[in-house]
């Protein structure tokens, strides 16, 4: 099915964000694992796998629209050096992703591609949930202190 080129470009932008997030979350998860923070590793590893599933959906949708998914493009990774910084940088990445997905949804809406729009809306819901989790972690650290917080993540 021949798709609209503006929609395909917007989907490719979202794909780049997804591919970047897969790598950033994966590295952060395994850094936490290496330091012994099993809980943080579990949660962030799962977030990375979810990003991969989103990327898969976007790739399949672009192919269905007769476009070429660009798996080569990757944005800069923001890798932290210590736990609090890593969570803050993930939060920053997540907020930017949400902005990109919202922009892509408006493009789909304007071009009347309601199926792509629905797919992005489903992805957006999961992104907002993960951002909420990240916000909670950052505010927990502010409230109970980094030492107490990390004690809970072993």
């Amino acid at each position, binding site marked *: 099915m021949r798709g609209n080129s503006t929609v395909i470009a917007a989907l490719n932008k979202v794909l780049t964000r997804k591919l970047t997030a897969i790598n950033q979350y994966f590295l952060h998860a395994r850094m936490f694992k290496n330091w012994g923070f099993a809980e943080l590793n579990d949660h962030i590893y799962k977030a990375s796998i979810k990003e991969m599933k989103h990327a898969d959906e976007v790739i399949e949708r672009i192919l269905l629209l007769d476009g070429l998914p660009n798996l080569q493009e990757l944005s800069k*990774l923001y*890798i932290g*050096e210590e736990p609090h910084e890593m969570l803050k940088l993930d939060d920053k990445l997540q907020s930017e992703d949400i902005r990109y997905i919202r922009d892509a949804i408006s493009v789909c809406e304007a071009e009347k591609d309601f199926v792509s729009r629905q797919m992005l809306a489903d992805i957006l819901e999961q992104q907002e949930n993960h951002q909420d989790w990240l916000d909670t972690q950052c505010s927990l650290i502010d409230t109970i202190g980094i030492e107490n917080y990390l004690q809970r993540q072993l």
Partner: protein
Amino acid sequence: MYVCLCKGVTDKQIRKAVDEGARSIRDLRQQFGVGSQCGKCTCCARDVLHEALHARADVVHVYVPSPQGTLEVDIAY
């Protein structure tokens, strides 16, 4: 934070290098290899460099008018 993942260079290392005399992206490239592999970090490295330079009292940030528009230059003395 890791500014350059290819060479494993952090923002702290860049700030320290500025304290020790680094003044440009070229200096950072020579010292650490920042931006010499994939190049994705150049923009972020420039931000960290400028932030560190502005925090110093012996560096003046000047705006120079030119035919291409206004140029921003850091002058160290």
